[in-house]
């Protein structure tokens, strides 16, 4: 199971990097979203997948899920959610102000 998840996360990374290298702003944002999904999958996989077990360690319980990655992934999801929505707004404003969403045309000279 861990192997499949790792491969899946790897595929998400590949797709994410490919999208980041595109020229259109929206595609780049989708790329960052894919990247963060890949990262989150990695976190949950690294804590060993134990399905159907509680994330609680108490006396007498021998089989449990590591709760820490779940706490980490939650934090990380919230952050990437916030940043992605900020990025979408920023992309829209960039498009409005600069009149283009092509990164090739967004390279500028000195700001004078």
């Amino acid at each position, binding site marked *: 199971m861990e192997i499949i998840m790792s491969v899946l996360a790897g595929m998400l990374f590949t797709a994410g990097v490919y999208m980041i290298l595109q020229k259109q*702003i929206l595609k780049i944002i989708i790329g960052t979203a894919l990247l963060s999904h890949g990262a989150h999958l990695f976190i949950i996989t690294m804590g060993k997948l134990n399905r159907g077990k509680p994330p609680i360690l108490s006396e007498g319980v021998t089989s449990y899920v590591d709760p820490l*990655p779940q706490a*980490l992934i939650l934090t990380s999801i919230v952050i990437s959610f916030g*940043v992605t929505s900020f990025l979408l707004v920023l992309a829209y404003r960039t498009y409005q*102000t600069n009149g283009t969403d092509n990164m090739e045309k967004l390279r500028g000279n000195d700001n004078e």
Partner: protein
Amino acid sequence: MSNLAILPILLPLLTGIILVFLNKRLPLVRLITRIMVLVNLAVVSIIAFNVIQNGTIVLKAGDWTVPYGIVLVADPLAMLLVVTANIISVACAFYAFKSLDEQRERYYFYPLFQLLIAGVSGAFLTGDLFNLFVFFEVLLIASYGLIVLGGTKEQFRESFKYIIINLFSSMLFVTTVSFLYAVVGTVNMAQLAERVGEVQQDGVLTTIAILLLIVFATKGALFPLYFWLPKSYTVPPTVISALFGALLTKVGVYSILRVFSLIFVYNLSVTHQILLILAGFTLVFGVIGALSTNNVQLIIAYNIIPAVGYMILGIGVFSATALAGTVYYLLHDMIIKAALFFLVGAMVAYAGTSDLRKMGGIIKNQPLLGWLFFIAALALAGLPPFSGFIGKLLILRGAFEEGHYVLGIIGLMTSLLILLSVIRIFINGFWGEPKSEYVPSGNPIKGKILPAAFLLVFTVFLGLGAEFVYPTVQTIADQMVDPINYIDSVMKE
């Protein structure tokens, strides 16, 4: 007692939140900011004094024992940096009143500014690698808000790149932390150091170390990942550039310092060798950038990069002398970068242009600005008796002692070129005759000089009063060479 450690984060955080609600009443916001930055500086100074006198304060959140809960570690290194960050926050707050237009002030400059300080303090204080990521995000999100503040064409253009590159490195950071968790089963820095020491850092851990280095190198603007820095740091208003230049890259450098002096210190021939090579390239390429342009703000922004090179050189050499130099240089560089951005900002405001070729003879009308800039330039290049000298001396002495002659010589040569790059501003901008075809706009700059002078006082103090600061820094470095000191201070009950 241990709860004191959270105050440097909590105070600016609460202030920021309160300021959001008061946003409509600008005079009140200004007053609260003024009071709170001073209160904050006083509080962190007291805590720092306490920590240096009585040893590290460890805050265990919710009273969970160390490896299980979240810890904040206020050790002397972190507290020195927090104090310096707050000195800069005071200067920036007072500079902002005089330099920002009201529109920008209204659009949440002060709350974002306070949140940035909270994030920076948190990153310095945390004793947990995942929390380092969280605080990185806090300060980055505040910086995203600040860098687009005002919304001009150039700001949008450059800030988009800045945000994407930071987002990418953040995601790499999370992934690396999860790798590290899978290998050693903890994210607490003290426990990480202990366990990595037990397994003597095999190949997998060294790979993870390099991944972390890439993450911090992106945040700290190390060769070859500094390309995003110069332009994105010059597009926002001066006070924001100063904040970024003084604080953000230094958090990256601090993270490298922490991770590569505490956790990954068992395979020096790989990790620290890479640090040395990168430091050499960072020094050379950064200073070439600084010499390549006539835009005064860009010259100062490029000068951030060789400074990072010096600090990484000190970490790569990894002897007590060089590490002391790195810490000293870190303190110096935060202050001097903010001061230089302020002075250049005032210069640009006065001349009405940032093109060096259109300036001249400013010192005739603004002698104070000119001489302050001269002092700042000498301090940046590391001439005695100013603060840059001591840090550079220690780093380079460490390099020569450990036999890194080539890097030592590169460091010395770079120093000269840095002096050339800033003294060019002085010679062309301040000396000579005013150029008749370009009339300076003559904006008043009195209020902008005072915060810079305030920072320069600290530069001179760090240089002339080195005997007050240096023993503390040397103690910090002596303890840093052996990770067991940090581990013991955190793990002890």
